[in-house]
């Protein structure tokens, strides 16, 4: 049951991440004048036709908006290259999740941000798997000294909370980078930080596999160690690698959010869940503009989906293998 829900959520997330702000009626970076801190507009139905009432700015300082119930803006699904589109109108933008401090559509920004946040988490996880598999295989296959060396380093790195390592490593880079550089830098960082967990698991599996009869037989038959490693032993790790991936991604997602929150991730105006949460992280915004917390909901759903997909193995290593 869990896996089903997880899969459905994951597919939805993938769709949003691929479509970006085309999910919403507006672009992620358009600033709408006279719409700073506008609240979400509710969708109403007239029979089968959905519509919204346009917003009117009543008091700029107190950020009070009212709905003009005498007019309607009809909504269309899958039109004009967007999932939800509004008819071209002078009545102002359709803000289904409200607007931020600069009058930008929050729904569009959350969707667009998923590309960056998820993108860098996935890239980092893949890199961590690659490096971890390499080191794990080396540890299990070369000899006891290499094994001890690699496992000592892996254990030391794995024991520290990930975020502290990421923060320190991030600090070694220029504090401000352009978005494409941030993407590369964060992916590399996550790869460097995540490999120990993968390495330990791959090493364990390979140790076990090397001791099995078929490996000895293959060696005896004249296959090189490398060939045995790649052709016979590696496939044994695939299951583990799959689960690892599903565990690494949420952890890296949190790390990206933390870094962006601290200003060390994607720079404004690039939308990212971390920077959007940072703008929402004061009591006044939570009280008066709670729609700004939408990225938190997105984050929770993503984490949930990935954890559900990874199944329910309950050993300590899987439950607590990622420092949050």
């Amino acid at each position, binding site marked *: 049951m869990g896996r089903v829900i997880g899969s459905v959520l994951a597919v939805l997330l993938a769709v949003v991440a691929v479509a970006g702000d085309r999910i919403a009626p507006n672009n992620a970076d358009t*600033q709408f*004048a006279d719409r*700073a801190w506008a609240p979400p507009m509710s969708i109403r139905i007239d029979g089968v036709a959905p519509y919204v009432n346009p917003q009117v700015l009543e008091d*700029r*300082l107190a950020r009070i908006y009212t709905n003009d119930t005498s007019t309607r803006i009809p909504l269309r699904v899958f039109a004009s290259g967007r999932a939800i589109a509004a008819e071209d109108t002078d009545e102002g933008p359709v803000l289904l999740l409200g607007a931020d401090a600069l009058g930008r559509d929050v729904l569009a920004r959350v969707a667009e941000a998923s590309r960056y946040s998820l993108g860098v988490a996935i890239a980092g996880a893949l890199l961590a798997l690659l490096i971890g598999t390499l080191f794990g295989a080396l540890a299990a296959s070369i000899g006891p000294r290499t094994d001890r060396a690699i496992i000592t380093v892996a254990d030391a790195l794995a024991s520290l909370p990930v975020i502290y390592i990421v923060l320190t490593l991030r600090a070694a880079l220029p504090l*401000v980078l352009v978005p494409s550089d941030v993407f590369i830098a964060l992916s590399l960082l996550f790869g460097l930080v995540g490999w120990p967990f993968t390495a330990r698991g791959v090493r364990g599996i390979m140790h076990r596999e090397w001791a099995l009869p078929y490996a000895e037989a293959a060696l005896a038959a004249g296959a090189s160690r490398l060939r045995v490693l790649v052709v016979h032993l590696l496939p044994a790790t695939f299951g583990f690698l799959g689960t690892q991936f599903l565990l690494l991604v949420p952890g890296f997602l949190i790390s990206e959010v933390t870094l962006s929150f601290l*200003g060390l991730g994607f720079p*404004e105006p690039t939308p990212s869940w971390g920077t959007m949460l940072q703008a929402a992280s004061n009591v006044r915004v939570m009280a008066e503009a709670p729609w700004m917390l939408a990225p938190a909901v997105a984050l929770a759903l993503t984490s949930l989906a990935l954890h559900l997909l990874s199944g329910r193995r309950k050993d300590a290593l899987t439950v607590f293998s990622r420092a949050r």
Partner: protein
Amino acid sequence: MVTGTVVWWRTRSSVQFQPSANVVATLRTEPESFNRLVTASAAVDAITPLIHAPLIKVDRTDGTLMPWLADRWEALDSTRYRLHLRRDIRFSDGTPFTADDVRFTFEALYDPRVASALGSGLRIGGVPLTLTVEDAHTVLLEFPVPYGPGLAMLDVLPILPRHRLEASLRDGRFAQAWTPSTPPEEIVGLGPFVVEAVSPGESVSFVPNPHYFRRAEDGSTLPRAPRIIVRVVPDQSAEMVQLESGAAHFGTGGLRAEDLAAFRTLEQQDRVRLHDVGVALDPNALWFNLAEGARPATARPWLQRRELRHAISRAVSRTRIVDTVYLGAAQPVMTPVTPGHGAWHAGDVEPHAHDPVEAARLLDSIGLRDRDGDGMRDDASGRTARIALLTQRGHTIRERTAAIIQEDLARVGIGVDIVALEVGSLIARIGSGDYDAVLFGLQASGVDPAVNLDFWLPEGVFHFWNPAQREPAADWERRIAELMVPVVNATDRDTRLTAFHEVQRVFARELPAIYFAAPRVVLATSSRLQGVRPSLLQPHVLWMPDELRVEAR
């Protein structure tokens, strides 16, 4: 784990509710020292009026000079003043105050080993003032040249106790003398309060100075508050919450636009009092690197053209900045001299209206045209016109203003890349000239332009678009330098004002820096707080702490 919980419980209990008569203020950072001569930070500026006293204090409500440690003075000629010090005044440890302490303070101020930042501000054209002691209660102060602001300069100089600090000045340990870890009894001054206790990273508390020399008009002793606690609250949102809940009686700066509506409601409920002290003195500026041979300009000479700056001034909607960034609680401005500067502000210099058509014409005139049909202008070599705009990361107002500038310039075909830097790196980049354009602001140190010569004069280090020029780089720079002479050296106010108004006209014509909007500064104080003298200059309330007190309800 158990110890952890116990420790946590103990630290929590240290933030208990305060007895109701204490005045509680908040600061962003804790003061790095108690010696204004050594450290010039906002926190030290805020607590100095509590524990120290100057010779003469400027009444910020009307700009007049108030007798303070000096109870009368006369001008002997255009550069020399004789100041008569009050008699029978004692420091907080009982030691009598004499002219020797004034001499010592000036000695420390100009001592090269101390390298006081305040000392460089109290020089005129790099030449220090000369102080001569005539007798135990009279001193002679000599300026190197006639100086417009005159004795008002002394407002910022606290008089330090010779008997406590002379030894450390001799040994070269002056800069380390009064840190937060110094025992409070050693921090001696002539101000209304003395340091009671320092809780590192959390708060500093002050109690009345038993020897304070001032008395109220009705003869009762000053200060009125039994204790002032200054709490360190780094986050402005957390500060607002403390103000709202009454845990703090006033804060560090003006209210943000997004807090205004909530605080107006609180004022109606009689929980706070709001003070509109005027238009801010330090609006943000957008400027380009106008230095000769600046690296970005060699490849893109159009970056240094006056027409570009005029185009930007018309392309960016000041109204939109006022409405979106400040939610309407601001005023469009054209120069760094805002209506908050009072008479110094030249009323005839109007901010440009939003005129994208004129902006487009100006950009066409310097050869920036859309040559490849992509909607963005290109220079003569066909490259898209892009500007890398540096600003301060974490400063919401600057970041939002930059975003609006980016949007409005995109509409006229100029691409802007915003690079938000940590303030230290930003200032380093500005210093090294490694930038296209910057959106930033200087904190105002005073209303009188003569104290801001680093900014106005071409040779000044804070003349940010082209600092430290050996020779004025353009005719208009020379003109401003000439006009500033009477502003600095004339002692007649009208002469100074007229010259300075002309400076602003030249500035508006050349636009070395573009200004958009200045917010109204609104201070919030608890309705229980009495004796408040709010001021537009920092520190807004603590500059005059003598009468502050909290009424019980």
